[in-house]
């Protein structure tokens, strides 16, 4: 059995390499039109020195809205599965990794080490996530990356027991998420009136306005991504966690 699985893995790798080989071997140079245009114009038109964020929040804002909708649908599906799961096995939710201490079995192998370290590290990671989120237009990073770091910081805060915060409450998190999603839709549709119409970019003549909109969108997307992922993971680890 072991040999056949080895053989299958190598066969699959071989076939994939054969499929990719023409791309590696080809001598044709990559198209440079869009790259040169963005290299010369992106900073002047959007005011963001990080060209990646000037693309996905400036020129391609509607794509970003669709991407956020994809994340929303994924989180909604996961949450509905999770809620049904908890309804079916209500008496067997006792797990070692459960957040609230009374749900854990008595003989669970668990020390206070994880909780202390997590609650000490949580605020630092939260600060770093906010930094990545706020400085997305001038340094690598942005809303999504900062949001994921914020989500892991919230999970750390939920694991720890030393810091008492409202931030790990699912209701508060859901409210922040709903508010930021409404503001995202409002901003993306409001941007339309500044420019040529629907599905147009926010690259305007005044880079100051564009840069402010990019910062605002980074904050909104970061809050949205961070709170929705945090709600999902906290629900996975044993439901509501009210301090």
């Amino acid at each position, binding site marked *: 059995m072991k040999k056949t699985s080895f053989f299958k893995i190598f066969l699959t790798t071989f076939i994939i390499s054969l499929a990719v080989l023409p791309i590696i071997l080809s001598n044709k140079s990559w198209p440079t039109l869009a790259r040169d245009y963005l290299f010369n114009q992106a900073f002047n038109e959007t005011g963001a020195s990080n060209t990646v964020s000037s693309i996905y929040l400036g020129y391609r804002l509607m794509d970003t809205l669709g991407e956020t909708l994809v994340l929303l649908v994924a989180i909604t599906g996961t949450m509905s599965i999770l809620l049904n799961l908890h309804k079916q096995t209500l008496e067997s939710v006792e797990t070692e*990794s459960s957040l609230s201490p009374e749900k854990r079995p008595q003989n669970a192998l668990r020390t206070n080490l994880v909780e202390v370290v997590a609650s000490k590290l949580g605020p630092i990671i939260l600060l770093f996530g906010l930094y990545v989120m706020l400085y997305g237009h001038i340094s690598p990073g942005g809303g*999504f990356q900062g949001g994921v770091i914020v989500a892991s910081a919230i999970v750390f805060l939920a694991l720890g027991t030393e810091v008492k915060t409202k931030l790990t409450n699912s209701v508060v998190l859901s409210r922040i998420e709903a508010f930021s999603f409404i503001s995202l839709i409002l901003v993306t549709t409001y941007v339309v009136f500044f420019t040529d119409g629907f599905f147009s970019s926010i690259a305007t003549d005044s880079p100051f306005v564009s840069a402010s909109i990019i910062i605002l969108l980074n904050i909104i997307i970061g809050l949205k991504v961070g709170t929705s992922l945090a709600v999902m993971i906290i629900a996975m680890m044993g439901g509501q966690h009210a301090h």
Partner: protein
Amino acid sequence: MNILLLSLILCLAIFSLIAKDLLHSIIALSAISILSALLFTFLKAPDVAITEAAVGVGVSTIIYVWAIRHTKRKDEEK
């Protein structure tokens, strides 16, 4: 350097496929994520590196571990 990182990623990917314990596979997958983030940094794509590190190491590992906790071990002998 890139070749070394890529071959390490390939070795870890094969290990994660053939490992008997699924938890070992998850650890190998997060190691792949860290190595990919390093590779992206060398290739001057820091945005992708940050995303890879945050999503691959943090969120997806938690989700995989949670999924494995809710499944049962099934061996051939039993």
